[in-house]
């Protein structure tokens, strides 16, 4: 889903950079408030792990391949603010050193994978936990969050491509449909892997699941992993 240089119109690139800037500013401010000493090694480890995980490409339908994005797990373990910073670091290293994703399209890639791909799974998982108040709630939330997060990130990528009429000669419906169909299957894979990893973490290191601790106050009291 890494959009390279040349696929988006300059106006779309600028808009996506501005949108990403707003979230970066917010994430840096909030991460400063919620990031604890204990979380720094976790943040570094998960960022490195998902950089490495993105080197594994598994085959999906239509002869294409997919890889884990990692946004949902980063959101559930670190919270969305540190999750966005982690994803930004991965995308920056990929773009600068490997040409995986463009420089002009960096804002769009951060929006798709670092903001939509992190905040949507985070919110869906929170609502599932709030509704079901048990372990299954978190696992269902993790699966659905990853699936919907991936799908929405692909739909946004399709929108950006479709609206780039100078660079991408096809309309929004065609670009969105093409991206969404493939990424539905990628999302199912990401959802299953996310639920498995969260389940393993639940059994071995429940203290690493930060979700309830960084939940917004308007959601009210959330059950912690130790009580579910």
């Amino acid at each position, binding site marked *: 889903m890494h959009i390279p240089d040349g*696929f988006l119109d300059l106006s779309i690139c600028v808009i996506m950079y501005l949108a990403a800037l707003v979230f970066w500013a917010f994430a840096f401010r909030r991460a400063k408030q919620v990031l604890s000493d204990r979380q720094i090694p976790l943040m570094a480890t998960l960022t490195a792990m998902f950089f490495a995980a993105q*080197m594994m490409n598994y085959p999906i339908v239509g*002869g*294409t391949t997919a890889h884990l994005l990692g946004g949902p797990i980063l959101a559930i373990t670190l919270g969305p603010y540190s999750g966005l910073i982690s994803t930004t670091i991965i995308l920056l290293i990929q773009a600068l050193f490997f*040409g995986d994703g463009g420089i*002009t399209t960096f804002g769009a890639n951060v929006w798709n994978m670092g903001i939509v791909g992190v905040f949507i799974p985070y919110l869906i998982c929170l609502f599932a936990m709030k509704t079901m108040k048990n372990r299954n709630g978190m696992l269902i939330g993790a699966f659905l969050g990853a699936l919907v997060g991936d799908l929405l990130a692909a739909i946004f990528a399709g929108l950006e491509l479709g609206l780039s009429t100078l660079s991408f000669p096809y309309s929004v419906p065609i670009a969105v449909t093409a991206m969404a169909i493939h990424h539905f299957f990628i999302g199912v894979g990401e959802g299953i892997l996310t639920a498995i990893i969260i389940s393993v973490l639940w059994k071995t290191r429940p203290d690493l699941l930060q979700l309830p601790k960084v939940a917004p106050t308007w959601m009210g009291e959330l059950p912690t992993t130790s009580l579910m």
Partner: protein
Amino acid sequence: MNRSKKLLAVGITISIIFVVIGCIWLSLSVETLDEVAEHFGSSESPVWTPPIPDYEIPGLEGNVAANIFIGIVFTLVTLGVAFAAGKVLKAKK
């Protein structure tokens, strides 16, 4: 070994396993976006020449050992950058 060091050790080990699997068995990358773009006739126009395009050292394309080396080095670079970012954020608290 305290819990943080153990976490780092486990994380680095898993990352190296990911890199090795990614370079040996799951290295073929056919990105959906590239396929869609190719189908629609769009092409890339890079504004930056990356030093290691497509995760392969120029001149050593297809060399699995070199790819694993690059994967591990940049996994550790990513770890260092994220650790530094965490420290900077914490210092500004």
